[in-house]
């Protein structure tokens, strides 16, 4: 317990979140909870996420009922020990001041805007958070995604170290020209970004196609990579959901996009309208469909993965872990089996292809523990 009386406030996850909606409370008023327990669910610009307790206590007062939408920083509930009198809780609620949005936005604008670097004549967008002496982390997203996929991950990993999330060529705010679009060219781009950012030692975290790219960087440049976390990674077997890949490349309208994005998660209701809108806005840019089609053909042509790195990953000297959602409908969880005897493999229940968003707290803990020394 950090203080006698403390607040649970609306969290800010990712760049675009200015407000959130309380979906529901997982603890009732008056209930005790321990550190790490799930307290409530919040709908964010991407998917619904769970707020976990960062300390133990009693949920003395729920201020924001389910269904309410509030700005980041707003008071959601009051936590205190059982013996704190009600009057003190009342006073805390009455005296709670939300940080003014304008000053908060100004403060945030200073450090957390994405920036661009030139790599081999191509503009790549990245977001850097955190500083410190610990070895930096680089986060590599998957096919069709962008650095915002790490909205729940990056801020946590940025405690005490640089945490950089990159937009791959053809994705997010990076140039839409992708060269060959194959494993080699995308790996070149990530290597180039690491050099341009002056990173001499790094923990790599990659999701899906980004996992295969992270693994290729580790294979090419093992001295640079301190550890490798592969989340629902490509490159570990031939199967992939080809109709997802085709559907994602083709989708131009909301209805088909909703359907396709629903395949990514164990519960399609988690996908918010803003997440769908963000994907549509990205896909409307000139060159995106062509870039995605090129990458899809090179990596997943004919509905099969062209790359199998299983044996080479097994032989890597640095620590490697696999994290997968048990209900992954894009890349089967069975792709962990060949490596399960050699590496730590974490299979998460009630998660699909986006465990770092669906089970953000668990995945954050697994990565933090893995990279801590």
């Amino acid at each position, binding site marked *: 317990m950090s203080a006698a009386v403390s607040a649970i406030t609306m969290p800010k996850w990712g760049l675009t979140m200015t407000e959130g909606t309380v979906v529901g409370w997982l603890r009732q008023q008056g209930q005790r909870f321990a550190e790490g327990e799930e307290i409530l669910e919040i709908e964010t610009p991407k998917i619904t996420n769970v707020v976990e307790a960062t300390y133990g206590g009693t949920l003395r007062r729920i201020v924001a009922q389910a269904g309410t939408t509030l700005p980041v920083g707003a008071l959601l509930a009051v936590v205190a020990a059982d013996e704190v009198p009600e009057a003190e809780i009342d006073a805390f609620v009455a005296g709670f001041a939300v940080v003014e949005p304008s000053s908060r936005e100004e403060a945030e604008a200073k450090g957390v805007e994405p920036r661009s670097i030139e790599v081999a004549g191509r503009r790549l967008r990245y977001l850097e958070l955190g500083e410190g002496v610990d070895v930096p982390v680089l986060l590599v997203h998957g096919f069709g995604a962008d650095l915002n996929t790490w909205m729940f991950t990056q801020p946590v990993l940025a405690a005490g170290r640089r945490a950089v999330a990159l937009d791959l060529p053809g994705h997010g705010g990076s140039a*839409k020209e992708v060269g060959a679009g194959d494993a080699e060219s995308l790996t070149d781009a990530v290597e180039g970004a690491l050099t341009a950012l002056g990173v001499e030692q790094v923990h790599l975290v990659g999701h899906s196609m980004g996992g295969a790219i992270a693994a290729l960087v580790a294979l090419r440049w093992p001295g640079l990579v301190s550890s490798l976390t592969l989340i629902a990674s490509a490159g570990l077997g031939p199967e992939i959901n080809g109709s997802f890949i085709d559907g994602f490349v083709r989708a*131009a*309208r*909301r*209805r088909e996009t909703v359907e396709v994005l629903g395949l990514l998660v164990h519960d399609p209701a988690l996908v918010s*309208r803003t997440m769908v809108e963000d994907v549509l*806005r990205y896909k*409307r*840019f*000139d060159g995106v469909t062509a870039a995605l089609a090129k990458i899809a053909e090179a990596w997943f042509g004919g509905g099969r993965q062209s790359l199998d790195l299983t044996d080479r990953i097994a032989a890597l000297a640095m620590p490697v872990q696999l994290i997968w959602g048990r209900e992954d409908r894009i890349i089967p969880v069975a792709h962990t089996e060949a490596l399960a005897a050699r590496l730590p493999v974490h299979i998460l229940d009630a998660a699909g292809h986006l465990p770092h968003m669906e089970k953000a707290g668990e995945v954050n803990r697994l990565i933090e523990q893995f990279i801590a020394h």
Partner: protein
Amino acid sequence: MPQKSIRQALNEALAQEMRRDPTVVVIGEDVAGGAATDGQRDAYGGVLGVTKGLFAEFGEARVIDTPITESAIMGAAAGAAVTGLRPVAELMFSDFFGVCFDQIFNQAAKFRYMFGGKAKTPLVIRTMIGAGRSAAAQHSQSPYHIFTSVPGLKCVVPSNAYDAKGLLIQAIRDDDPVIFCEHKLMYDLRTEVPDEPYTIPFGEANIVRDGDDVTVIALSRMVHYANEATDTLAKEGIECELIDPRTTSPLDEDTILESVERTGRLVVVDEATPRCSIATDIAALVADKAFAALKAPVRRVTAPHTPVPFAPVLEKLYIPSPERIAAAIREVHGYGG
């Protein structure tokens, strides 16, 4: 991401398409400004400055200032379109369609059909709509329902700068004639607009806000009034789903019907007059295809069936207001309850 006005967004769309495709040309009254004088050659950029700077970059062969003759502008543009250019013609006030409708309605709209699909007419007609400036009955109308009623024409009615840019680029790349209706009171309205070119498909409505209680459909400037009204109602506990169809032809019927299937209640807001209007068209669509889902009569909030008044007080009463929209939503929400 940079904030841009609708004026800037349209200007950027035109400039980017003219750079990308040398067949894109702009033609209209004062699109450069001062062409007939020895003075400044890019004085106006259109009466509202949308085409400012295009003359300097692309020259007089691609930014064509015309005399005051809408029939010649539309005739030249339709002919240019059918013979290989992609003209963006400016019909300064949409009210002026009366003098050039043969070129649009009988010619451009019919070419593809009457030439057995062998001709295409990639023509965009940008035009101003809307009341609210005391510009009187001949410069204040919103006749997009008339354009919508013509087979062979497409009709776009954007409500914000992001949509305006993506829809104008889509219109220029489209192989059919498109009437692009810009509300004269919204040119300075700003929102985040990416610098890169992008397109928004026609017939894809934008869901402005989610809600399960009442479906509200609005176009152009009325989207903002409806948003104000639905903000007020949200505080009263009525959650509206606000839909902006963005294009009236083609119309995204599925999004409208799916929403009404869920809410059972519909209010349509339209700045145009009510007879044979988009509001009436959507009400008929829902009565026809989602009748069983309706829990209340469909309410239309529109202008009255009169010319637009010049007198400011009357003009204010003429245009649907957030208060009238809110009252209609409350009525529909409370019906039968």
